[in-house]
């Protein structure tokens, strides 16, 4: 049985505020100036990518009670950058992570509907939530949310936003100068949503946008998160960029679609992936090692280890052996504003494994952390990387990848210039845009056709995917 050849989807993630981004490289530019974002988005658009992706930050990270200063720190406002990018690009999708906890549905729906209008149908929302009091200190509502309410509120948030997006019911404003009827339906935008999380009603004041609803991304990996994605998301910002785990995740999530009346094409699986390109595979491999060493300096290795040990290890030599002392499991996490500590369910056991592995392989702290934190997803010549990506997509490990360069803003250029033409040559990636909206790039239908199955469906949410969940040392980025 011959399987149809899949077209690859490609997207680009603006380098984040974690150690994946190598700011010390002489080629590294600003993470704040708009010119960096414009360069990045234009490069992605030149390469006919589906979309660019921006993460969000709502509180600067701290470790040991101090602002973490070894990685890139600071970033602009997600919505505002995306709207400005709409002015300097024409086709590329504009995807932003926006937290549901420290916002109200009416405002977020208004912002996404506005962005979709201003970009002529290119908006997408990666829905995340968090509940830490640390981040809540910057907001009116504070951070407290009872545990049983966390997922429920986020899920309800999205459902409420959908009700707002749908409140104009696809209605197009006639604006008939002759008859003087601007709006023939005086109730357009009427909505009412009353539950224990949101008690709101009135008129949504943004008419139906070109995509009707922004494309919805989900980034969680838990069972509840997968179920939510299967019921409600258009795409998953995934974390499994290798063959085995990728296929497993892909089959699992796509297998859940049928019970929601959806097919495999209704939900795209797009893992984040890093890359190192060279003229030859050997050169790329060598460069990849250099990049890893730049990403995990001695200081960074100690900081990573502190996140696991949950204690001050500043006295340890990164080029020496691992600490004999056990992790501190008694107190609060010393690391604030990242999802890392939630990953360590049993610090003592993980520390034991680390010590054993370091001893067996004779690794220093830094060498071990270079091993334990993720290596790059794709390493090789352009030809090799193109083949790796194509093979993975055809093997149903993914529908495409969200590429995360390690240099801002030019790190994507080499991929655009060398890998993309090969994939286009092979007929695996579009030579030009065929549609104008992001839904069209992604091959997604009109959302409201599926409204019956989407609104109100689903269990769980992308709750564990905090805006910086990807920044954990054992994570994908």
């Amino acid at each position, binding site marked *: 049985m011959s399987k149809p050849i899949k077209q690859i989807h490609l997207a680009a993630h603006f380098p984040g505020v974690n150690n994946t981004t190598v700011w010390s490289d002489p080629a590294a530019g600003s993470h704040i100036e708009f010119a960096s974002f414009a360069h990045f988005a234009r490069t992605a658009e030149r390469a006919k990518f589906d979309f660019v992706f921006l993460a969000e930050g709502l509180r600067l990270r701290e470790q040991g009670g101090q602002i973490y200063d070894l990685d890139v720190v600071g970033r602009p406002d997600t919505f505002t*950058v995306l709207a400005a990018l709409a002015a300097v690009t024409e086709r590329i999708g504009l995807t932003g992570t926006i937290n549901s906890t420290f916002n109200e549905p*009416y405002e977020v729906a208004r912002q996404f509907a506005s962005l979709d209008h201003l970009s002529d149908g290119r908006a997408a929302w990666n829905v995340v939530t968090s509940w830490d009091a640390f981040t809540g200190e910057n907001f009116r509502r504070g951070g407290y949310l009872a545990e049983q309410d966390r997922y429920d509120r986020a899920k309800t948030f999205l459902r409420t936003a959908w009700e707002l997006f749908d409140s104009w019911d696809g209605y197009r404003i006639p604006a008939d100068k002759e008859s003087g*009827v601007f709006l023939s339906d005086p109730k357009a935008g009427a909505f009412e949503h009353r539950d224990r999380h949101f008690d709101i009603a009135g008129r949504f004041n943004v008419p139906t946008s070109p995509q009707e609803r922004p494309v919805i991304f989900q980034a969680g990996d838990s069972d509840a998160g997968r179920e939510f994605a299967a019921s409600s998301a258009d795409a998953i910002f995934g974390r499994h960029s290798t063959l085995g785990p990728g296929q497993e995740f892909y089959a699992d999530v796509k297998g859940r679609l049928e019970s929601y009346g959806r097919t495999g094409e209704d939900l795209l699986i797009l893992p984040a992936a890093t890359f190192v390109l060279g003229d030859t595979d050997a050169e790329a491999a060598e460069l990849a090692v250099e990049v890893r060493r730049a990403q995990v300096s001695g200081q960074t290795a100690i900081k990573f280890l502190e996140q696991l040990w949950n204690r001050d290890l500043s006295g340890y030599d990164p080029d020496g052996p691992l600490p004999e002392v056990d992790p501190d499991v008694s107190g609060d996490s010393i690391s604030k504003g990242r999802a890392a500590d939630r990953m360590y369910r049993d610090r003592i056991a993980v520390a034991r494994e680390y010590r054993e592995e370091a001893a067996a392989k004779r690794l220093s702290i830094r060498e071990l952390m270079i091993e334990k934190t993720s290596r790059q997803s794709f390493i090789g010549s352009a030809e090799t990387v193109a083949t790796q990506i194509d093979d993975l997509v055809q093997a149903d490990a993914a529908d495409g990848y969200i590429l995360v360069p390690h240099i801002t803003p030019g790190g994507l250029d080499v991929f655009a210039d060398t890998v993309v033409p090969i994939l286009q040559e092979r007929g695996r990636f579009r030579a030009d845009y065929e549609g104008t909206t992001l839904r069209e790039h992604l091959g997604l239908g009109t959302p409201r056709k599926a409204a019956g199955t989407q609104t109100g469906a689903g269990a769980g949410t992308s709750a564990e995917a905090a805006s910086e969940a990807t920044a954990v040392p054992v994570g994908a980025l």
Partner: protein
Amino acid sequence: MSPDPLLHLAVALDGAGWHPAAWREPDARPEELFRGRYWADLVAEAEDGLLDFVTIEDSFGVQSTDFNEVDDRVDQVRGRLDAVLTAARAAPATTHVGIVPTVVASHTEPFHLSKAIATLDYAAAGRAGLRVQISAKPYEYALIGRRTTEPVRLADINTAEVQARIADHFSEAADYVEVVRRLWDSWEDDAEIRDAATGRFIDREKLHHIDFEGDWFDVRGPSITPRPPQGQPVVTALGHSSIPYQLIARAADVGFVTPHDRAGAAAIVAEIRREQEFAGRASDTVHVFGDLVVFLDESTQAAQERRARLDEAAGEPYTSDAYIFAGTPSELADLLADWRHAGLTGYRLRPAALPHDLTRITRALVPELQARGLFRTEYQASTLRGHLGLPRPANRYAAVAPAAAPAAV
């Protein structure tokens, strides 16, 4: 404040223009009110006229002629896009004109808005501001559901109870501006050091918690976004009475006021200057702009006829909080030149219809003012603060070297 020989000029953009029937004019583009291109074109036109800045109106609720309820009218523009995002969409297409979106303090997070305006300032390379607005409408409160408010009847506006509520709204707005401003300063300008030798990207001693505690919100900080290019983007507010005048005097760089004659303008300016002194800001530049709705045509008669035609289309005479001017650009220039003697430093003109009255401002009024030596003939600065003669302010959190203090103003 030393008198500036030149007037400052801004335009207030709202939908198809300020007259409710403006969308029916032959050159109106009502089908494009929700397109990015429409707004980018209007802002570019303002830049062609060398204007100081544009403001972009906003509200959480749908437009309504009734203060307390949605009116269900079908003959006027209803619906609008988020003003901050509209501003961001217009920013990269222009290079000089300031861009000042409205932000609704009553329903939004100062933390989000501070970084949004800082980001707009980066996208516009130093041309961002904000116009802070309160929302007291019950139907807007119901969109958020966080709290409720009672309807206000115009007849009760001067009762102690309503005045107390208004004072609360503006007190919240004042706190909001304070938080937004502190967050802009929460990174010192040279906080990003990229010091390869020590491995540190920032000098964390130059990042500051703002630790704001107030009646409506507490905000810890620092901002997620570094200090914007202007240091402090320009803060503006519209006021019609003493309570908002206090906000203007205490917290704003530009106040918009609505006098209906020269004497009225003088009284308002005097009140704001007094409040400014009480607030200890006597030496700060606080611009007071007169707001005017304008119908501009080649002849006085043509302007008045157009106004009458629009009123007829609307089915009622247009009224406004601001003085309504209908006449020639030359007559308007006379008025602007006259009222400035009351102490107004500039004007925010509300075009009755777009694009007509905007292009009459940029292509006829501006040359008229230039010919009289009252308006710039080219941009002298590239930032909004620069256009307004506002120096880039020192950071409130930066350690001042003893020798350098007190800072020159």
